[in-house]
């Protein structure tokens, strides 16, 4: 048990209370629901069963998990490939210009999630901006069907979560002593080997934090697949949504949600371990005693 839970600082009590009441208790309720049966017309019949978890492994639903994981993993990979160079460029800009660059990187986030997603519909549909531009550029073939594809869902996820990934990687990069890269160059490593041997390993905690962030939020996302996937792509989020609001099968929805939460906890634990192990970020032993 972490030290702060064994003897909580009274100043943390309001936050702790908030967390317990509105996060831990609902999660435990959800966890409990998952072990009961559904009533014939919805609701919950308090008979213990493991059937809900067994259903999760039904190929039909397991397939949704796999699709969700694949889409989330692809979005994560693309976001990391875009975010790392961007964060690197920002961290190497003159120090007084960095806040404004970060502001622009995060700017889209301040607009409404739905509006941002609808904007992509405007861009991607058959009569949309991209197809119009292609036509006016002399393209005469069939308009491209970009909307309601897996690609559109991935684009939407990457676009929506990119700012956080940039921020996470930037925070790692900005704490990196630029002299380490210079030392590497001085010792005979070119720019590429310096990046692979020093810069990247030293900023892996930021990459892990940003990666886990977008992966966890993507795999459980249901708005983007509904809007940009056109309902043709079921992701776990949509499945959970359907169980609670359409199928009225709360226990099964709870079981799906639990699996999602456990997956998230697993990933966050791995990420925390990675951050811990990264040298230089662990406080020396004498500071732990304080």
């Amino acid at each position, binding site marked *: 048990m972490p030290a702060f839970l064994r003897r909580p600082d009274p100043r943390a009590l309001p936050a702790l209370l908030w967390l317990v009441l509105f996060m831990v208790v609902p999660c435990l309720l959800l966890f409990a629901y998952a072990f009961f049966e559904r009533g014939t017309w919805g609701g919950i019949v308090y008979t213990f069963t493991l059937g809900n978890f067994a259903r999760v492994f039904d190929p039909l639903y397991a397939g949704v998990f796999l699709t969700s994981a694949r889409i989330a993993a692809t979005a994560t990979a693309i976001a990391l490939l875009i975010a790392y160079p961007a964060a690197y460029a920002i961290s190497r800009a003159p120090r007084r210009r960095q806040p404004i660059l970060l502001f622009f990187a995060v700017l889209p986030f301040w607009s409404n999630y739905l509006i941002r997603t609808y904007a992509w519909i405007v861009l991607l549909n058959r009569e949309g901006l991209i197809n119009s531009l292609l036509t006016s550029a002399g393209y005469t073939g069939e308009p491209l069907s970009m909307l309601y594809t897996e690609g559109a869902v991935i684009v939407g996820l990457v676009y929506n979560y990119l700012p956080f990934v940039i921020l996470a990687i930037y925070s790692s990069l900005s704490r990196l*002593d630029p*002299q*380490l890269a*210079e*030392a*590497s*160059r*001085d*010792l*005979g*490593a*070119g720019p590429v*080997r310096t990046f692979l*041997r*020093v810069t990247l*390993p*030293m900023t892996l905690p930021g990459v892990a934090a940003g990666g886990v962030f977008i992966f966890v939020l993507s795999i459980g996302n249901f708005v983007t697949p509904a809007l940009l996937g056109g309902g043709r792509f079921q992701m776990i989020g949509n499945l959970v949504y359907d169980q609670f609001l359409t199928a009225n099968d709360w226990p099964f929805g709870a079981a799906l949600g639990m699996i999602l939460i456990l997956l998230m906890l697993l990933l966050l634990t791995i990420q925390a371990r990675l951050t811990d192990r*990264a*040298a*230089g970020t*662990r406080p*020396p032993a004498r500071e732990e005693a304080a």
Partner: protein
Amino acid sequence: MTAAADRFLALEGLTKDFGATRAVDGISLDLRRNEFFALLGPSGCGKSTLLRMLAGFEAPTEGRILLDGQDITALKPERRPLNLMFQSYALFPHMTVARNIAYGLEMERLAKPEIAARVDEIMAVTDLAPFADRKPDQLSGGQKQRVALARALVKRPRVLLLDEPLGALDRKLRERMQLELKRLQHEVGITFVIVTHDQEEALVMADRIAILRDGRLLQCGTPEDVYQRPADRFVANFIGTMNFVPGVIDAGARFTAPAIDLAAPGAPPGRAVLAIRPEDVALAEPGAGIPATLRDIAYHGLDRVLHVTLSACGTPLQLRIPARADLTPAVGGTLHIALPPDRCTFFPD
């Protein structure tokens, strides 16, 4: 010594501008093979920029750098046969001591057994063997400093550049490391270029010292040269302790100040200052010298430093005399001092 050995590392008119600021202003220096050379100056004098140009991290605005006759000005840092020991050490926090030291050899794509042998060898020389598997954050300041040194030396560079290498160490350790570095330099036979703002450090360690101020080279010479024959008033003041007495030099080359009248052969007429080291000021027989009031006595073990003010003009002065010498007046009393003419230097004021 041959001319080539005298011009082992040649700096030709090196200039560096940062925007409108000129950090280094036309510095030319010839460094000899295997010498211990110090770049000395107050902070902001351009010495670190000069070192970074040698390492390849800054491109000179003007000028050239020649190593053994070969122009290396355009070479990238990773291609220069020079290594830099960073002031902050810049050890890789995610690697052990042994991995840090091996890094530079791995970049040369040497065979594994050779890397292992050379790392072991340098760790033995620098007493680092017991710490081979530690990470940098588990080392003391002195140990980190030795890792940084070993990491640079294991590459067997033609020139080792050291940026304020002892700055982060406490006084005792610093004094020991000064001698240690000097011994090491002698052993490995590599040209050392050290940057420091500590004149004592430069005097103790270096074979020759270049003194910089505002990006310009003021003087270059042996420790004895710069101490005994400072080129200008700044150098005289910066190196060691120096007394200054303001006065005037007349057309007959005589320096006069209240109660002082000395021959100043060769000095141009005009307002001037007389410069003399505390150890060169002598005590005189009563009535024979310049009267001065004793203000304070500082005991330094081997000798004492007397702080006096000249009675006629109030100029403060220090004298360094053996601790056992008889001293009649107490603090507040009057004594007489002499300024031996051959020990006096004159600078225009």
